[in-house]
């Protein structure tokens, strides 16, 4: 009897264990977990820390697109509301995810090729990389091109809905100037798959290539294994000109030693007339090598004569950390002819460490201003030197150095490493030895003032432009740009400001007259602490 009781009890325990231990929950019986982000009256808060991209949308100037870093998304914003509101009327959808047999778990499929990005990356020998969103460029009011790195590509997104948009991938046929093996993520010619992204991974070859630390770049087994070469990486910016997409890649090798491979700009033909649009590497000049290391920005520029150029902000190798001496190689602005697809000129700026935003161009196309990555300064170039129609078309060896030392050509340097335009320091801001700031600049589309943000100080400086009427009149660095005032728009990056919105970065100015053409803020900027945000402030007439 006792033995029977024991057996019954034992079986009951076994049954209980099997039943209960076999049915664990997954936490899905209640509402799905949501991280609630609260905006402020001035700032639209988004996830993922520092927004990696912020660009105006064509049109009235009252709309912009901003990049949410994590989870990746692009939001269109209505800048007329305070704080800026989303253009999307429905919830912005996530990038799709697919099971990843090679890399584990669910991984994103940002290019909509039916495979997890990490899986394809692993298969092609680049390990399990995922796309980290970067900068963006508006192709139209409902289409932006977004860079991603890790899984190197350009992704097309509708900012008004946040949805991915497909293009047809149309690579050129194999030729002496185009080897499909150097573009491993691209399909074969003629296949024309529809995808929302195309790869910016390409093999770059060249004799005598050296990295930013002076080390030789030898052969690469993932390239042809014979010639010196490397694969592009760290896609940094994208611009559109002359029916082509230009994409810069920084080619970082190791951040701890500030080691970069030579910078590159890739060229893709974009047929936006076809439905869907078609994109593919240029068949003959798909890869351009910059004069320096770490190209971080691309700015389309059309000369008064109508010549389409691309201005490449080559920042130079920049080390991690704080304090002076972080910039280890020279900066420059390289000039690419968007028609001939050549680097035709360069404006050397010394060890400036150019900022990562686009070059701001004034309404008369005379001056180009760019921020700094490690200084409380702005740098600038004189665009008049690019008016010369013989620039890049003559017998001179390219690129032509526009530093005033090349016979027959002008000096494009206005503010360089030796003569920067210095912004004022906030009295209660952090010490420069603790916080190494970065700046970003924008010029009003129909006015003659500029604004510049200061990352560490949390300020926006209003600057007045005083340009001579004649393009042939040399620019006086002491007079062309003047500080009007500095406004403390957010808290400085000091320890006691923990919890406050701070660390402004990219800035934009709305066109029109504030108070007349629109109410509310005229300047919008991104911030990264304590969360990512897009904020507005009234600067002009404020």
């Amino acid at each position, binding site marked *: 009897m006792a033995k029977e009781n024991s057996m019954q009890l034992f079986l009951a325990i076994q049954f209980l264990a099997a039943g209960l*231990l076999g049915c664990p929950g*997954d936490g*899905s019986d209640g509402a799905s977990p949501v991280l609630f982000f609260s905006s402020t009256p001035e700032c639209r*808060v*988004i996830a993922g820390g520092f927004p990696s991209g912020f660009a105006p949308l064509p049109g009235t100037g009252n709309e912009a697109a901003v990049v949410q870093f994590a989870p990746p*998304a692009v939001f269109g914003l209505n800048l007329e509301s305070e704080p800026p509101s989303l253009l999307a009327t429905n919830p912005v959808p996530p990038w799709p995810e697919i099971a990843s047999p090679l890399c584990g778990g669910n991984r994103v499929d940002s290019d909509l090729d039916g495979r997890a990005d990490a899986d394809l990356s692993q298969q092609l020998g680049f390990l399990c990389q995922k796309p980290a969103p970067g900068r963006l460029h508006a192709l139209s009011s409902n289409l932006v091109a977004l860079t991603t790195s890790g899984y190197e590509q350009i992704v097309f997104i509708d900012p008004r809905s946040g949805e991915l948009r497909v293009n047809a991938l149309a690579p050129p046929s194999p030729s002496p100037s185009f080897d499909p093996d150097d573009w491993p993520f691209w399909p074969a010619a003629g296949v024309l798959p529809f995808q929302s992204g195309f790869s910016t991974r390409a093999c770059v070859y060249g004799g005598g290539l050296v990295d930013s630390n002076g080390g030789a770049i030898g052969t690469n087994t993932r390239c042809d294994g014979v010639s010196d070469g490397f694969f592009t990486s760290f896609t940094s910016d994208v611009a559109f000109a002359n029916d082509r997409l230009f994409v810069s890649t920084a080619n970082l090798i190791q951040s701890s030693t500030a080691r970069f491979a030579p910078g590159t700009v890739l060229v893709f033909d974009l047929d936006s007339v076809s439905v869907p649009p078609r994109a593919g590497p240029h068949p003959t000049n798909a890869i351009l090598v910059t004069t320096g290391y770490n190209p971080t920005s691309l700015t389309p520029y059309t000369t008064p004569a109508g010549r389409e150029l691309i201005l490449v902000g080559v920042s130079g190798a920049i080390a991690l950390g*704080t304090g002076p001496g972080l910039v280890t190689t020279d900066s420059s602005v390289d000039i690419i002819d968007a028609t001939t697809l050549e680097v035709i000129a360069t404006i050397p700026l010394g060890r400036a460490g150019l900022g*990562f935003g686009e070059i701001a161009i004034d309404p008369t196309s005379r001056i180009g201003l760019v921020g700094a990555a490690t200084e409380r300064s702005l740098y600038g170039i004189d665009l008049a030197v690019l008016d010369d129609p013989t620039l890049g078309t003559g017998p001179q060896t390219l690129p032509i150095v526009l530093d005033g030392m090349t016979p027959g050509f002008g000096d494009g340097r206005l503010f360089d490493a030796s003569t920067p335009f210095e912004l004022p320091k906030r009295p209660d801001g952090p010490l420069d030895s603790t916080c190494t700031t970065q700046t970003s600049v924008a010029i009003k589309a129909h006015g003659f003032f500029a604004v510049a943000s200061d990352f560490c100080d949390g300020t926006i400086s209003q600057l007045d432009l005083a340009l001579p009427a004649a393009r042939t009149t040399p620019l006086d660095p002491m007079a062309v740009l003047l500080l009007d005032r500095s406004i403390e728009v957010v808290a400085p990056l000091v320890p006691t400001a923990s919890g406050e919105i701070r660390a402004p970065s990219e800035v934009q100015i709305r066109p029109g007259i504030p108070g007349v053409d629109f109410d509310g803020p005229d300047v919008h900027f991104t911030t990264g602490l304590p969360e990512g945000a897009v904020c507005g402030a009234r600067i002009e007439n404020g």
Partner: protein
Amino acid sequence: MTVPTWNATRTCVHRGRRPIVAGRDRVLPSYSRSTIGSSVMAVYSAIAAMLVLGPPATAAENSISLPEEMLVVGDPNTAMDVLAGATTTRIDAGVRLLEGVGLDDLLAEVPGVQIRRFGGTGEPFEISIRGSSPQQVPVFLDGVRIESALTSRSDLSVLCLDVLDEIQVTRGPGAARSGSGAIGGVVNLVSRTPSAEPETRIRGAVGNFGTGEGSLRHTRRIGDWGVSLGYCGFHTEGDFKFQRARPSPGGGNSPIEPRANNQADRHTGILRLDRDIGGTRLGLTQLVNHLDRGTPGADSNQRFFAEEQNLSLLTIARLDGELPQILRGHDASVGNFEALLAHRYERNDFADPEITPGQDLIDTETQVHSVTPRLSIRKSFDTKIARLDTGLLAEGRFETRSSNEANRKSRAGMSIRAELTSHWLDDRLRISPSLRFERFGGLDSEWIPGLFMEADPLDWLRLKASASRSYRAPSFGELYLPDKGFERGNENLKAEVAWNFEAGLIAKSPFESPWLDFEFEATWFGGEVDDSIVFQQISRNTFSYENTGRVETRGYEVSLRWRPHDWLRLTASRTVTEANSEENGSAVAGIARSQTDGRLEFGPREFWKLSSEVQYTGRLPVSPGDLVGLSSRVVWGGSASIDLAQLKPLPLPPNLQSLWLSLRARNLGNIAVRDTGFSPRPGRNFTLALEGAF
């Protein structure tokens, strides 16, 4: 949580995530696989086998000497003296262990305590008391610090209840007693003391997600020596399914997916020896922990190969007893002394071979040694108007850190403490002033005064109040984190300094009727912490530790314990905490504004019992400034346990004193629970356990 930023040189900067290695080749040392872990386990196994196979245990009660949980105010305990007026909760570990609870479950039930879990059973968790940071709650074992000198944090997931006898949680100012770090409160874990009667307990449990654990405890006397030996092992695959959190602005997926790389193996062994030598007691304690655990990281960016290994050894030698006659003098009153020497060794290895473009391989190895000598004397005096209990303590600390990424660093410190507890009016009024002086190398000297008072105006009513200064010296990691460009330590850090206040009452039922057997407690607390140390971004792409401004905490705790019948016990508590920066009013991240707990227990505790628990957690800010938060939640759990040995028809060994079978259920509602923005916790899960005592 530090989220990736992309700027400057286009490097993705987030704390500690930068590998470049193909494949899953581990780069971890082999010591943990073959040397210390298995050697120690072999020793303990041999000792355990020897003891267990000794003379059969005589029949002994399976008695529960302490109530399951009791609130103590000013009750001195040999393991951790508690000042009169300090609010301490003492929890009997053994009783609740029979229900299958974990250490985090017990701590979470204490008013004023918030537990931040980073996963399920066996995964790390942190303690916050009254709005403090985890670094502001030092943890002691038998009165000796066990928090890491590297981080000032304690990962109590490496310990198991099986090796503990009691858990003491002191809320509020404790630095006057405990020294550096005790700003929010103090947790003291009391190991199992050797008992006069031999006893052996064996426990085994299985749970969801491939979880299994077992323990063996034995205590007996061998000659003049009391011996207590314990071992517990734990394994989990940790592959619970969860739903990823999505941000309200949009863009996030919220699939149900398994938690990857979440396996854990833990081994804990403790040996405690006591011996009386002519009225003086000699005690030796050796605690060994080994942990091997995957670190999956954020749910939105799971790391599939990152791994952590931790080994810690704590050795305590203690001598305590009555003061020698030469120190007593002509005074016939009794005095006690305690001399203690403790050494703690900790080794931590972390590696992540998963590649991140442009980043270096992560393979960090750190070792820390801490040595603590201590001498304390206590003596009581009777005067005409009051009884005075006096105490004097002198303590030293020496710590050294070595790492494969940085130069060796060392520091030393000393402290002296004097205190007095005066008893007035037939012990109805107690006043305890105390003063501690502490100095750490490289920091300013700190004077830490405290004043504690409690009064019993009525037999059923106790009033208490206290005010005390506290401070916390920066940890090794905060000071000397190697400069890697994107993160670094700060050798200029100042100590955190705080003032804490509390006032409250405890009311026990004055009625005879058992239906009115209740205890009610209410405490208001407040505090101000200056120079709080926070890891934050200080530059474009650099993070470091900084002294931030003043943080103010205010709140209250109320709790009720009601026992209308021997079979029915009800406890309920509510804590409201406001923790804000005084500089800008922004809320401190990670502190839920309110927490309400309820527990109902039914049944004859000595035979069987059913329990039901509910916990409500209010809105939880997960970002400084309260820009991001998790909504409130209600989580249900419960347990059922029965002593099979008391079921007469079962043929059980005659020397089996008890055989408890228990089933514990967590998160019965199967809701998505998380205490941080990016670390999910499991849904509904169960644990089935069987524990026998011989």
